């Protein structure tokens, strides 16, 4: 994406604007990221960084991945 979001929440908002169906898949109606969805900044789980307020360095790669505890 070619935007310059400062924090993760901004990047997600930009993503939701492009693909409106994604918002409800990633977060529930209270705005919380769903329990078994992990968001990674590079290799790091943002849970252990700043959550949705994690600051994004330039050229960040964000991955949204369901948990391995599946099935």
């Amino acid at each position: 994406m070619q935007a310059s979001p400062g924090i993760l929440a901004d990047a997600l908002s930009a993503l939701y604007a492009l693909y409106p169906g994604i918002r409800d898949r990633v977060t529930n109606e209270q705005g919380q990221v769903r329990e078994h969805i992990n968001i990674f900044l590079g290799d790091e789980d943002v849970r252990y960084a700043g959550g949705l307020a994690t600051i994004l360095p330039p050229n960040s790669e964000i991955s949204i991945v369901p948990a391995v505890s599946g099935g």
Partner: protein
Amino acid sequence: MIGQVLGHYRVVEKIGEGGMGVVYRAFDETLCRDVAIKVVRKTARTDSSANQNLLSEARASSALSHPNICTIYEVAETDGELYIVMELVEGKTLRALSGSIGVAPESVFRYGAQIAAALARAHDKGIIHHDLKSANVVVTSSGVVKVLDFGLAKRAGSALLEGPTQSFASAQDASSISGTLHYMAPEILRGEPADGRSDLWALGIVLYEASSGQLPFAGRTGFEISAAIMRELPKPLGPPVPPGLWAVIQRCLSKEPAERYQRATEVQAALEAIQWGATAPQSPAPDSGTIQPIVLHGVKHARIKYGDFVLLVGTTKGAFILRSNTLRTRWEVGGPYFHGNCVYAMAYDNRAGRRRIWASTANYWGTLLRFSDDFGKSWTNPLEAPLRFPADAGVSLKNIWQITVGRPDEPDVLYCGVEPAALFESRDAGETWSLVRGLFDHPHRPRWLPGNGGLALHTVVLDPVDHRRMYVAISSGGVYRTTDAGLTWTAQNRGIRAMFMPNKNPEFGQCIHKIAMHPAHPERLFLQNHWGLYRSDDYGENWKDIANGVPSDFGFAIIVHPRNPDCVYIVPVESDQFRCSCDGRLRVYRTRNCGASWEPLSRGLPQKLAYETVLRDALVADSFDPAGIYFGTRSGQLFGSRDEGRSWQKILDGLPAISCVRAAFVEEAPGSSASKQAPVATRNSSRERSSSSRSRSPSSRSRKKR
């Protein structure tokens, strides 16, 4: 005023007028620069404390330094006049630029991103604008946006709050006072405190206005405008407004603050992304209500036509649709639909000429309610979950446990029972759903405890005659009944044990597994409990133990025979510890005397090493005569009986764990007389149950061979 000197400012000319006062161009004789001075109208000030508030607010705002914020230099009082000295911004207001058709989308992006940036800076410093409107946004000749009057509106007096009750004698009045009303967020009209998100609402209005030249919420009186803001949806903006921009505007204009963007930087990022990124979004319909059908490729479909009999089987890893004819001997299997998803609930709606299959699909990405009108070839694929808790509920949807089709004479009504325990209702055939608050706000709610599968409202039973009465069952909360169409609910558990509580007969909190009712006897209910089998003969007022001669009174499923209201089927389970059939024998039990005695039905069912569980929604009867009974096990086996349970055949095995089974007869086209009757093979005999007649259903004909 012209030519006057205020402090070290010489007033040159009037340049405008607003709700607070008149704005002049002035010359700063000390710093030799042009400035703008707003002289605050005396009527806008109520007393000297208001002055003090205005001063302190302006002081805070003067600390805002940002290219898109009109800087405040000074606020002072001279000779009783209160004035605000600020940066002189020359350009056109966004109101003037928008006119009646709006500006080009590229401009909307550019201006919108700058306004959002201004809001972001102010919100960071704890300052809410309170009065963002297109008249407060000035665009300079170089395209730079300046937002005026940060934070000042709140303290300028009560003129703003009179808006809703005023009507407007002239356009002048309207623009000075209602100009603000049009931008007011619903929560402010409700008297709640404003926060940054109220500014984002106003931004949504500004973007709408800039895109179209129209205000989304309008009216001739303050009252009409307020009503529109609170209740109406804005008229959608189509081309040339790009769908992405409309999506951003819609989200800013969510009535619930929690559903809007939460921060101005999010709006800014969204606008910038659309402006730079993206080629138009792939999914063509950005508004959350639009349903895009999904066709599941690579799924085997059963070819279903009128006159067929269908079993809907929901499992923990997808849904299956089985098709047979009225003989129900050979089955064609379609599915798995939504493979990998938990399909806890399914339902068939054949009211009003529909042939609609409902299913809930759950995975890590959430729980969605979907339907198919073509027997599974295509399904709805909502952008947003149709069932969602409102922001103030404080909980989010975990699962849909039950989909209940409403009464035949209310063909557009449906109910869903969900986890965490709550009831949702739709009155428009499932387009929109609302939380039944009478139950959600019940004072018992905080004390309901989760059962083994979670805190779930899993059963909905409707009184067919009295439309105001219905029952729900909650694990582990108990049976609740309403007699006023859902406004109020009462716990109806007298006589039902809770073995896991210190008081074995509490008012509520029992872990009810299922209740069942026959429409011919709405006063009579049967109940399978977490330990206990009960019957009520008085609409749930009192429950009587009917565990007479069953190997275990633990179990999940319970159903009433379609035509015999005294006849009930259960599948006993050994215990809560073991949760499998007793003694390794899979047996259905039946009573034909309302529970006075029970008899096992096991012919054709495994009687050795059969440790099976039938979950609460996995037992169903069809409406044939004789009745067919079907059940699915947690080990993925599906059994059926065509002779009311006397003998059983295995229909299918190897499925994933079966959570629900539903039966449906696919009627002829609406209007045909055949479609109204129960599917008896000859179609002109109806309710006789004697099996000696030759004109019985084909299955009994084949039995006569012995």
